[in-house]
């Protein structure tokens, strides 16, 4: 193994944290320089992450770029990192989205300014997010998981809009509440395994050997479930999300929707399902049920929203419902669908939040009624992109949003052996109804915002269309939306082998 293979992940992951420290030390008045540094650092991290693709073996199923060294020997926690087909796409997406956020921030730093702190926190957040996807030690996973919480708390609490403090505290405490139970679950796994270990791979193997008895699994699952379910967020634990999204600054919303939520779904696939397979199977119908409730409930809630950003936030609840439905079928199709859905949602909803942010920057309102229509006349490019992304989000084939949802529904048609076919098919039908409602609220939104004549109040306002910086920040996402839609193999080809071996391990392959 070369030094590159051992260190690449670590370099990519900690580069932003190092950048955050550098930025923290820069003088406050060098505003441009600080922004430039953020772009360079996130860009460099992205380059490292992309370079990894060239030495990644796409046919293999095991961990690559693995590094496993002692860390906290007292408790047996190790610095065990690596990457496989399940995490690769999310890992890359993290770097892409944060880089694009840095580019976007070249132009827009939300009130009250404080560029330095804003960007340093964003970089710190990047390390936490990327770290979550590479950790193969539960303690390490937990540290990264919690590390994400803090910068996001400040991003919402300081740079958010009117009701920011409420939203920030709600986000922080709700997630923290979940992670306490998650930690208890982790500790349970540690003490129940023989020899005691926090290592995810070894725990998976131990579980595959029938090491964990059923009762333990059922209880421990509840713990990790709470942690992950709140993060996803699954219905009925989602109520922090609309508030956090609505109040967060644009960049915060993009990263929240784009990456943070996926930490929860990723946790289900990486930890809950393979380490507690029997419990996962017992709870799967309930998870599927909650997923489908989220789809329908989220869509109905969207119909009632008056605030654009809150609408998009609720749409996330529904989309993540499809991801959870896919996971809960415990089939290769379902889990691959879930992974595809996560990436697609990250790209699409990330883009939607960028757009809503830009609309707010121009109109100084997010109220659908106040914008009042005619955006296609005032800012045709911005409105056109918004329509494009919304249509991608409602699941048009040929664009990214389609595959995750349609494959999740397909997997629900024939769930893993032992799961109730009538139940899953019923859920599938409701999921299908959800897609109709989804089309309904998005098209209604476009009608009220984009179409119609221009209200008088905006007629003489100087509102500019998409700026150059925005084009640069958005173009990669637009291309990704199209590319993933036309060529789903880009993601499915990655996750295929890894998912297969994961399911074989738990006896579902």
């Amino acid at each position, binding site marked *: 193994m070369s030094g590159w293979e051992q260190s690449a992940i670590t370099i990519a992951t900690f580069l932003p944290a190092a950048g955050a420290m550098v930025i923290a030390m820069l003088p406050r008045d060098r505003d441009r320089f600080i922004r430039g540094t953020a772009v360079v650092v996130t860009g460099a991290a992205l380059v490292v992450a992309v370079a990894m693709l060239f030495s990644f073996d796409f046919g293999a199923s095991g961990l690559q770029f693995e590094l496993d060294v002692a860390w906290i020997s007292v408790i047996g926690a190790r610095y065990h990192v690596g990457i496989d087909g399940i995490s690769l796409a999310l890992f890359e997406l993290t770097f892409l989205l944060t880089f694009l956020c840095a580019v976007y921030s070249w132009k827009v730093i939300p009130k009250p300014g404080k560029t330095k702190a804003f960007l340093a926190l964003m970089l710190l957040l990047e390390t936490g997010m990327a770290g979550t996807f590479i950790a193969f030690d539960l303690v390490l996973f937990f540290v990264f998981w919690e590390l994400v919480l803090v910068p996001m708390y400040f991003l919402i609490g300081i740079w958010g809009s009117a009701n920011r403090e409420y939203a920030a505290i709600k986000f922080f405490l709700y997630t923290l509440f979940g992670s306490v139970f998650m930690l208890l679950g982790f500790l349970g796994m540690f003490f129940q395994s023989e020899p005691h270990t926090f290592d995810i791979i070894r725990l998976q193997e131990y579980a595959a050997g029938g090491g964990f008895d059923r009762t333990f699994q059922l209880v421990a699952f509840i713990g990790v479930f709470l942690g992950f379910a709140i993060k996803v967020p699954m219905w009925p634990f989602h109520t922090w999300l609309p508030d956090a999204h609505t109040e967060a600054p644009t960049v915060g919303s993009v990263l929240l929707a784009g990456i943070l939520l996926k930490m929860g779904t990723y946790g289900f696939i990486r930890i809950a399902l393979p380490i507690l397979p029997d419990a996962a199977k017992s709870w799967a119908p309930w998870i599927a049920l909650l997923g489908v409730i989220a789809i329908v409930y989220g869509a109905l809630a969207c119909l009632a929203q008056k605030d654009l950003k809150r609408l998009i936030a609720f749409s996330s609840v529904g989309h993540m419902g499809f991801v959870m439905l896919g996971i809960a079928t415990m089939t290769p199709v379902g889990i691959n669908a879930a992974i595809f859905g996560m990436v697609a949602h990250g790209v699409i909803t990330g883009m939607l939040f960028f757009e809503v942010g830009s609309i707010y920057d121009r109109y100084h309102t997010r109220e659908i009624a106040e914008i009042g229509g005619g955006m296609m006349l005032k800012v045709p490019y911005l409105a056109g992109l918004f329509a494009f992304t919304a249509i991608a989000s409602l699941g048009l084939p040929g664009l990214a949003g389609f595959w995750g949802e349609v494959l999740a529904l397909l997997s629900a048609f024939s769930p893993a052996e032992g799961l109730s076919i009538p139940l899953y098919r019923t859920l599938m039908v409701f999921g299908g109804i959800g897609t109709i409602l989804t089309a309904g609220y998005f098209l209604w939104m476009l009608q009220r915002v984009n*179409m119609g004549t221009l209200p008088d109040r905006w007629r003489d306002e100087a509102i500019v269309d998409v700026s150059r910086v925005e084009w640069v920040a958005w173009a990669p996402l637009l291309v990704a939306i199209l590319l993933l839609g036309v060529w789903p193999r880009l993601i499915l080809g990655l996750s295929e082998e890894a998912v297969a071996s994961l399911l074989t391990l738990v006896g579902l392959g």
Partner: protein
Amino acid sequence: MVAAAETAVNGEAGTTALAWIVTVLPLVSFFLIVLFGKRLPGGGAWIGIVAVGAGLVMSLVVLSHFIGGGEATELSEDWFRVGDLRFELGQYVDGLTAVMLVVVTTVSLCVQVYSLGYMRGDARFTWFYAVISLFTGSMLNVVIANNLLQLLVGWELMGVCSYLLIGHWWEEKENSDSAIKAFITTRIGDVPFLFGIFVLIVATGTANIPEITGAIGGGAISRGLLTAGALLLFGGAIGKSAQFPLHVWLPDAMAGPTPVSALIHAATMVAAGVYLVGRMFSVFVNADPWVLTFVAAIGATTMLIAALLAMIQDDIKRVLAYSTVSQLAYMVAGLSLGPAGYTAGLFHLFTHAFFKALLFLGSGSVIHAVHSNNMSEMGGLRRPMPVTFWTFLIGSAALSGIPPLAGFWSKDEIISTAFHEQHYIVWGIALVTAVITAFYMARAVLLTFFGEYRGHGHPHESPATITGPLVVLAGLSVVVGFLNATAFDVTLFSEWVHFGEGEHLPFNYGFAAISVVGALAGIAVGYRLYARWRERDPLRRLGPAYTLLERKYFLDDVYLRGVVRPIQYRASAAVNWSNRFILDGIVHTFAWTARQFSRLVEVVDRRVVDRGVNTAAGLTGFTGGILRYIQSGNVQRYAVFLFVGVILLAIGISIRA
């Protein structure tokens, strides 16, 4: 689809190897027009026209493969795999595919040339051409797809194009309402369609259409599954082909520019549902027999109720729209007759495309001249607009089933097959509908072109870009029927498009005579009532029946008030309320309880614990001095401390370990 990796399955691909290029051309032209259209002279329209023109030529070349008696061919390439399923991108070309390629490219070419004149000066001219191109490519993809998933992609893309074009003039809320209605209504059908695809995928392990057909032929799928599959697939057809009870979107779709109505909402996209049934016919034939009976019931119901609605419309486009719904129902009914009706149903799809496109473009020419859709503001236009008049007359006669025009051959075939197959109810309704069809077309022609002009201004004939396509389509409406003119023993079409052995009935002069007499009777009644303009429509004498038709059987009201509004406003408000007061209520109660508890702890802490601590006050003062520096209220500083803290903690623990 890389040519080198293609493999022919059933024999030599021959000229059919070109077919996929026909599909790709308009898709490429879409991107070219979007990216460069505005900067090009002519707004990029020529890109679309050249692409589809080249496509038409190639389609004819593909069709020549079958004129020579060629076999169906298939080419494909891996798309993606997931689990045990392997999906491909590919083409399956048989006679039906080839015929449809020709129809779609021909109509699209006519419509695009026509739009040069019709859409001239439109604010979104370039965008219009881009979407027309995307639409054409999507429809061709549906036609050519060798597997259901790829077909679904085209199917849904058409839905979006339709949405975009119906709402092309989105400044008016009415138009965007219609666009949304069309999208949502068809999607209601698309969900069962999707599930139908699932049934077949799970039953056979593939989405490949020839393989599915083969598996059915080999008896590999149980009848129960086929029944479920057929019914679910038919849901998609009901939505897309505007059959009862989901037909309500099509008349409203007339809010789009008229060329769009001709291309999408008459000749091609709405035919996709019928095409789907034809393409997946073995699923229907091998399902429980009552499935086809159900299909027949839908077809018969739709055909009649739509034709009745067409009788009373004032908007000329709505007459044609209801007529389209009714004619699509003929095709559905034809297919419901089983293998014997297969060719007849699809032949009607083929002929209808030409004369219905013609009628719509003709109505567009009229609308262009008089600036109104309402026939009450037309009249007497045969003199100022002779080309439009004569071509429209040919189209109307074709639709009414007057021999030897195209509609006569195809419609008569459906009607006589229905009798022959002893589907007497279908036969009766089809015959009655034929009479009504002739009646409403006579009414439309009389109100539009005869009598005195009742509108404003001085209408005059449209430019050549508009009349040119009319003449071409009129010519085709005369001749295409002869492709299956059984009276003269020409059965070319049934050699291309047939199911199984492709048995076809010998021409029966008796039945043909009944059809023709029926049509003439319809025209006669039409003439009797509308030869002279009356302010008050004579049909109003029908009283309550007229009101029922005027209110469209109250279906729209039921849907809107019974389903849409309650979901849009009431259910959503309830959900939002529950989110705010129940779910968040629990969260807030939780937080409140925690706060009360912490307050209690604080009290205990101050009264009991602090007494002891107070003695150490001096120490506290000292620490406070240091802590004051940290507690600066500067969040940035907090963040830095926090970060450094985490790092130090990690490092510290590592070192100790």
